[in-house]
């Protein structure tokens, strides 16, 4: 009976792994094949490994610029999000002030708006402030877009840190700001990692805001760069796959590096 159970679980895991990793693996094989090879047989194993497609995409198809743009926008947005989100969450969780819950609700309620609703207004605002078609504008939009969920995740974690710790630090002579840096932030590291990973992956793959708010070729981010290979008449599937792999690798690396913290953050109980 025990063996049977094990077999069933293993089978379920195999199916799930195939489901999750299969497409990834398929794109990986296609990234090493040319478009004409792929058209001949979609699922074939690469006969010759065309590693040269990677430097080709990087240098000749402008991927280096897209990658740098993505890196700049996402890293800046995540740094601002983490700092501003943590500070806001710390205040919402720790301080009693008038309308605390009201402001928290207002911030949190913006989560319910799908991006399609806000995008025209955002477009107008960015044009007015001269931020349309600029990486700074896109960064600010990303910060605004992800801030509510960041505050939400961090607030619930900060609220679980026992108040005595803050009072002890206050008596130990620390200012409110010092308490935030030296007590709240280090203790909330698992939750911070969770938001860093979530925001990085989400913004790295973000397409809708980028396609509306960026028009210049040299300001495109990676998802827009990949779109360049989709023409009206034909799609350069081979180069799209190579571009996808270039885009995916940083995400995989970040996940591998932070995954333990991510799980800790998701399952973190009371901090005793």
């Amino acid at each position, binding site marked *: 009976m025990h063996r049977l159970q094990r077999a069933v679980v293993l089978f379920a895991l195999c199916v799930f792994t195939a489901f999750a990793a299969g497409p990834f693996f398929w794109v990986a094989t296609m990234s090493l094949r040319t478009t004409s090879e792929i058209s001949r047989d979609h699922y074939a194993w690469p006969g010759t490994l065309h590693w040269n497609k990677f430097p080709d995409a990087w240098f000749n198809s402008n991927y280096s610029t897209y990658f740098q743009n993505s890196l700049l926008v996402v890293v800046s947005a995540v740094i601002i999000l983490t700092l501003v989100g943590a500070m806001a969450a710390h205040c919402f969780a720790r301080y009693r002030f008038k309308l605390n819950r009201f402001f928290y609700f207002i911030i949190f309620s913006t989560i319910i708006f799908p991006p399609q609703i806000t995008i025209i207004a955002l477009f107008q605002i960015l044009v007015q402030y001269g931020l349309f078609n600029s990486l700074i504008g896109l960064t600010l939009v990303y910060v605004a877009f992800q801030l509510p969920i960041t505050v939400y995740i961090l607030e619930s974690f900060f609220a679980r840190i*026992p108040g*005595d*710790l803050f*009072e*002890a*630090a*206050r*008596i*130990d*002579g*620390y*200012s409110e700001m*010092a308490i935030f840096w030296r*007590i709240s932030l*280090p*203790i909330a*590291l698992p939750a911070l990692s969770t938001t860093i990973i979530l925001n990085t992956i989400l913004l790295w793959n973000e397409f809708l805001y980028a396609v509306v708010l960026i028009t210049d070729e040299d300001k495109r981010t990676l998802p827009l760069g990949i779109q360049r290979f989709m023409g009206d008449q034909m799609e350069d599937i081979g180069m799209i796959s190579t571009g996808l792999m270039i885009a995916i690798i940083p995400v995989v690396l970040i996940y591998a590096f932070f995954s333990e913290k991510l799980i800790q953050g998701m399952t973190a109980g009371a*901090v*005793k």
Partner: protein
Amino acid sequence: MATVTLDKLCKRYEKSHDLAVDHVDLAVAHGEFMVLLGPSGCGKSTTLRMIAGLEAISSGSLAIDGRVVNEVPARDRDIAMVFQSYALYPHMTVRDNLAFGLRRRRIDGAEIARRVDDVAGTLGLAPLLERKPFALSGGQRQRVALGRAIVRDPKVFLFDEPLSNLDASLRVSTRAELIRLHRRLGATMIYVTHDQVEAMTMGSRICIMNHGKVVQIGAPLEVYRRPADTFVASFLGNPPMNLVKATVENGQLILGAARLALSPALLATAGTARALTFGVRPEDLAQSSGGEGSFGAEVTAVEPLGAETIATLRIDGSESELNARLGRDANVKVGERIHLRPDLGRVRLFDAASGVALN
């Protein structure tokens, strides 16, 4: 060392009608161990938190060493506090926990290390310095919390029920350790507890609070022997003081069917023909063979505890029950009628209506 003076200190929480702390006057002397004792919700912890600077003071004044500190933030009051939860920083080692308060005060690194090692040596924490709090037992955490207060060498130590999370045997040994510590440091300490044994054994003086007010302040034995009102009488002691309805008539105390002759001094305080509450500690009742100065009672329950026997009795001609602490060899049975002689030199008479002590 420092004095702490509370003058008509009040705390009113927002949206609350009643005062959580109601005009508390208290003067803690240099090097005194003052215990704030009372049932939960009596305002003792709030009072302590106001002294610490963790709660705003609604009215009245608080002075440390003669300087009014109402508006001084916690970090500038030069106090240290040991919390019930210990409040150790979970991401820091024991060493960092101990040094955290000193670093803020811009003390030289070598001096910090010397002080931390010194305190760790005293409290037996030396082998644990590199551990984090989650790897410590309850007792060890408690000692780290204590060490964190000592290492700062503050003017005043504040304790908020620091022993209540420890198991019984550890509590007894830590209590003794705290008493030794107070003697060695000679520091001013204010200690909040709801445990009367802690209060009796540790305090230089006890301040008993109820409903936000101070009911009585005094040395432990004085408060125990001469409770100011029926609340203190019934709060201190295990079993507590017996409180029985009685009246005075023709110079005699009527207790159920019994009449006890009172001393002229007691009579003078009691007055004549008024309703009283008669208070007597269980240990001030002795089994007797009857006669003058004693009253009869029926045994309703017996608790032989080894070192002593606690008997619950119903006074003849009354529904009132009381406890008597009899010797360990007392041989009484439920249903038996015995005679008890109260030590009239130690009884307390309270006004029946207000509960305030008369003698």
